[in-house]
């Protein structure tokens, strides 16, 4: 659809909606109000289509404009309430009402308008725009992985492009430029590493590695050249770092690794113990991680997971989990310092979105099928609850509107 045409349609529908809404509120006659409301709802249905919500547009027309408004019109006819007396009087209440309405419109409208200014109505954050990510945390001396997805930087689809990003370590303000290289000729995904040295000295800028100690922070601000917005990546330097994959599928092993120089107590391969918790079910499993070699300071281990819905017993070696669960690993070194695997929680069952799929999703979004899938699978429970609610409303409405109650039991 042509952009300018879409703009014209939007402004037309919006103007109609506002005029009709004012008609609802200002009409002396209730029947005109009702008809104006129908008009508003039609305009809104049109806007829903613009927003790719075709199913809801249909529902809006059928449920609201059709059923509900007919109910209103019946009520108006029944009560002969078309022209109710007393409306003409000008009152302080009416004056304040309009005043408050305008204040509210400014308060809310200005806020949301400014906050979302310039952001496309279409879904952007996953499919478009650059995404900068980096290892959440590292131990001093380790290297952090930095990745960037930015299709705009894929200047030449034939070769692996490179991007340079400046990182600054705090609190020493040591700056290093890290070069990211495209993973393939046309992937638009760039990867690189930031090396560190466990060193208290403030390092020189651009010497290839950060001199860091636990507690330091390495940050980068990457400008999206199209919008002028910044993406920020932060790498924290810690005594201990615990890592876990972002997602695993059911029945697969959950690999966990801990980097910690402090736990490397002897020349032989040491072990550390961590606890993995299934946040919703509450099941806990202790996992023993073994050092990958003498004095490496890196410990790895795996936890068996099994698909199931009933929470399993604690510490039986197998984590019972299902799609949507969140697993948290907790490593508690002897000095009482807690480290949570903050953003390394895994989502079971859902594979990572492949960027290419986004295009087809855009088409499918908002259609009847996707709404129905959400409604009947994820939101089955409130759907049923709404059915009960409608039943109660029906009983209540019938009882109250019935002509006469039984004679009082006097």
């Amino acid at each position, binding site marked *: 659809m042509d*952009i300018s045409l*879409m703009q014209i349609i939007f402004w037309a529908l*919006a103007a109609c909606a*506002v005029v009709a*809404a004012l008609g*609802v*509120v200002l*009409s002396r006659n*209730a029947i005109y*109000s*009702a008809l104006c*409301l129908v008009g*508003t709802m039609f305009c*809104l249905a049109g*806007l*829903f289509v613009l*927003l*790719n919500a075709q199913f*809801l547009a249909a*529902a809006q027309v059928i*449920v*609201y404009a059709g*059923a*509900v408004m007919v109910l*209103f019109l019946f*009520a108006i006819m*029944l*009560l002969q*309430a078309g022209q*109710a007396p*007393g409306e003409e009087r000008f009152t302080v*209440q*009416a004056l304040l009402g*309009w005043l408050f*309405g*305008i204040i*509210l*419109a400014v308060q*809310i*409208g200005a806020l*949301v*308008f400014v906050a979302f200014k310039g*952001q*496309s*109505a*279409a879904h952007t*954050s996953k499919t478009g725009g650059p995404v900068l990510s980096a290892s959440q945390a590292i131990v001093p001396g380790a290297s952090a992985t930095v990745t960037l997805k930015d299709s705009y930087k894929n200047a030449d689809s034939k070769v692996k492009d490179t991007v340079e990003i400046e990182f600054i370590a705090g609190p020493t303000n040591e700056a290093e430029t890290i070069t990211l290289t495209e993973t393939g000729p046309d992937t638009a995904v760039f990867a690189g590493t930031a090396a560190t040295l466990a060193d208290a000295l403030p390092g020189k800028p651009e010497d290839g590695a950060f001199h860091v100690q636990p507690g330091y922070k390495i940050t980068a601000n990457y400008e999206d050249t199209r919008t002028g917005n910044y993406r920020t990546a932060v790498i924290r330097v810690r005594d201990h770092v615990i890592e876990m994959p972002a997602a695993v599928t059911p029945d697969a092993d959950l690999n966990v690794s801990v980097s910690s120089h402090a736990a490397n107590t002897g020349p032989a391969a040491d072990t550390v113990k961590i606890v993995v918790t299934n946040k919703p079910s509450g099941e806990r499993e202790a996992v023993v991680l073994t050092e990958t070699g003498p004095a490496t300071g890196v410990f790895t281990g795996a936890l068996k997971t099994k698909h199931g819905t009933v929470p399993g017993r604690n510490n039986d070696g197998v984590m019972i989990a299902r799609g949507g669960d969140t697993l948290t690993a907790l490593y508690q070194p002897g000095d009482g310092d807690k480290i949570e695997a903050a953003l390394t929680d895994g989502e079971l069952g859902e594979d990572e979105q492949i960027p290419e799929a986004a295009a087809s*999703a*855009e088409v499918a*979004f*908002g259609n009847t099928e996707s*709404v129905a899938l*959400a409604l009947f699978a994820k939101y089955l429970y409130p759907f049923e609850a*709404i059915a009960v*609610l409608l039943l109660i*409303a029906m009983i209540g*409405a019938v*009882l*109250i*509107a019935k002509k006469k109650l039984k004679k009082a039991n006097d």
Partner: protein
Amino acid sequence: MIGVSHYLALSAILFSIGVAGVLTRRNALIIFMSIELMLNAVNLSFIAFSRHLGDVDGQVFVLFVMAVAAAEVAVGLAIIISIYRKRGTANIDKVNIMKW
């Protein structure tokens, strides 16, 4: 370009018109319609956000809002009718036996 903010601002304006309607009108039925207007405005916000986030949950919520609004209208109209039978008016400022 028509961005999400346009939809949101429109939603805020419609919502406020609905609020003003509730505050200024005396006819119970029109007040009800104004409330429907408010709910519709909120629905617009939901759908705009849903589109903005690329998440269909917002649309599901709109369906629930519609169902609930219908239920409220049913009960509300029943009550208005019952009051009209008793007092012969649908003017809400006449319904003030209980005060202070």
